[in-house]
């Protein structure tokens, strides 16, 4: 329970919570920490912060302080690759990436948690690439004092699928590139796909193990895939031949190589003719020609997820639709834009 006391009577009392001071553009933080004993010298400062009354906490048996509540919430939210310190700051606990990787949010459980009265958690977007020690989420209880059972129910909701938040380290894939197209194979034009794809692969910590060139012939495309697999590649990326022309036979080649699952078409622009297939557990990504022209495409949304261990199926490619439209800005600021969010 909270009891209100007049500021003039507060000397000698311990503060029930951090008291925040905001000086526009200059400072935001606790002017006084929770537990600070109010002395005569503080009164003027507190008045300047608009405090004419202070709270004294007298906790009932079934009540907890916001700091304890924040710790219970943080413990329930944090999954693999997340760490937090039980050092609430203004009642709030930050959750931080323990490693470089892909930040994952169980958005359903997060929504359910935030529907509980008097608790909150805010996060970065699902599937954001993060660096070690980067803040990915923060949580707090909203009132200063609340019922323990409400917090414990919120924590149970957060744990409904294990944990709400995780950072998955990206595996180091051995990538086999298959560059298709008669025009490149026969030397009519110079390939520019391999450097683009190689750069994206290495930027995510993986390496290109081999580059094969194949004409628009499904048998030869299939052979190139199989050769990569035999050499130990555990991720195959194919460029070109993903469209609807009669010469576009990359899909047939993938099928012929033994694809067990094929999902053609994504709800992303650029990248509608993208393909995600599997031979056993090994992913094959078919990148349409847009990957050559646009700096950022559906590949940039999907590749980190593949490397984080996700299996990309039809629903995953469909759910990218909301936010899947690139604005084609002259100065691309991705990932600091709405694309893929």
């Amino acid at each position: 329970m909270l009891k209100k006391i007049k500021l003039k009577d507060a000397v000698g009392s311990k503060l029930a919570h951090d008291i925040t001071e905001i000086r526009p553009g200059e400072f935001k933080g606790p002017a006084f920490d929770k537990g600070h004993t109010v002395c005569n010298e503080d009164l003027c400062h507190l008045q300047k912060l608009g405090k004419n009354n202070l709270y004294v906490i007298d906790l009932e048996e079934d009540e907890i302080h916001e700091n304890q509540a924040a710790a219970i919430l943080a413990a329930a939210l944090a999954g693999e690759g997340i760490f937090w310190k039980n050092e609430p700051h203004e009642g709030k606990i930050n959750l931080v990436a323990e490693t470089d990787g892909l930040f994952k949010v169980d958005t359903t459980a997060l929504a359910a948690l935030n529907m509980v009265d008097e608790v909150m958690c805010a996060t970065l977007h699902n599937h954001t690439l993060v660096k070690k020690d980067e803040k990915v989420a923060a949580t707090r209880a909203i009132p200063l004092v609340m019922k323990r059972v409400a917090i414990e129910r919120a924590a149970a909701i957060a744990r409904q699928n294990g944990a709400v938040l995780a950072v998955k380290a990206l595996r180091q894939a051995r990538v086999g590139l298959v560059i298709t197209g008669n025009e490149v194979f026969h030397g009519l034009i110079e390939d520019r796909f391999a450097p683009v794809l190689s750069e994206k692969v290495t930027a995510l910590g993986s390496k290109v193990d081999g580059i094969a060139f194949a004409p628009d012939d499904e048998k030869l495309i299939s052979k190139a895939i199989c050769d990569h697999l035999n050499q130990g590649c555990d991720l195959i990326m194919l460029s070109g031949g993903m469209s609807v022309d009669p010469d576009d036979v990359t899909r047939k080649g993938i099928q012929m190589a033994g694809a067990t699952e094929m999902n053609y078409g994504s709800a992303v622009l650029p990248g509608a003719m993208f393909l995600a297939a599997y031979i056993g557990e090994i992913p094959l990504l078919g990148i349409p020609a847009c990957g050559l022209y646009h700096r950022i495409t559906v590949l940039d949304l999907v590749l980190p997820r593949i490397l984080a261990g996700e299996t990309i199926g039809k629903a995953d490619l469909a759910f990218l639709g909301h936010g899947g439209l690139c604005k084609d800005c002259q100065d691309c600021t991705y990932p600091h834009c709405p694309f893929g969010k």
Partner: protein
Amino acid sequence: MESFEVLLEKSGAAHGHLCPGQAVGVRMAMLGCRLIDLNEPTSRDQIKKLLVYVEMDRCTADAVAHVTGVKLGRRSLKFMDYGIMAATFVNLETGHAFRIVSTEESRDLVEVYTPEIADKPTQQLKAYQRMPDSVLFRVQQVEVAVPEEDLPGPTRFKANCSSCGQIVRDRREVVRNGRSFCKPCTDDVYFSAAHEITWPDMNWAPKEK
């Protein structure tokens, strides 16, 4: 207790249609029975230990009654007309009682749990299967003092209406100035303009074989 899927199917058949309220009611009943340690509520040795108070006369109430086996006529089902999606499960042997309330936020979260389904009733039905109990319900441990006249078993109390002579059972009579009345002889009655009639085929009775 049978599986959720089996209970849902049977409950839907008994109710007349499979609706989202059935999913909520079946789960409410399963949780209630688990909390009061009566996991086979329709079995011979448990059926007399259970009382259920439902606070709404909606689809959910039928599902709760179907799963638990409680019935109005057995006096194991009590209807409290509160208009709240809630039910209280009482173990008469241990005295343990839990009131389970369906959360309002679960309705707002339907689309979040079923983003791949567009049809609203199907979406609700599936979402109420996917949500964990922690999202679907809030639970209160409560004390329920069951009056003697509300317990199942033979009629223990009878009174005569001092106005019309009607026998009133289970202390449902209204006492005014020391005299007992049946409810219809008071103003607290759900009908009006009552007058006795005759009707065609007044002597019909089922034929004995």
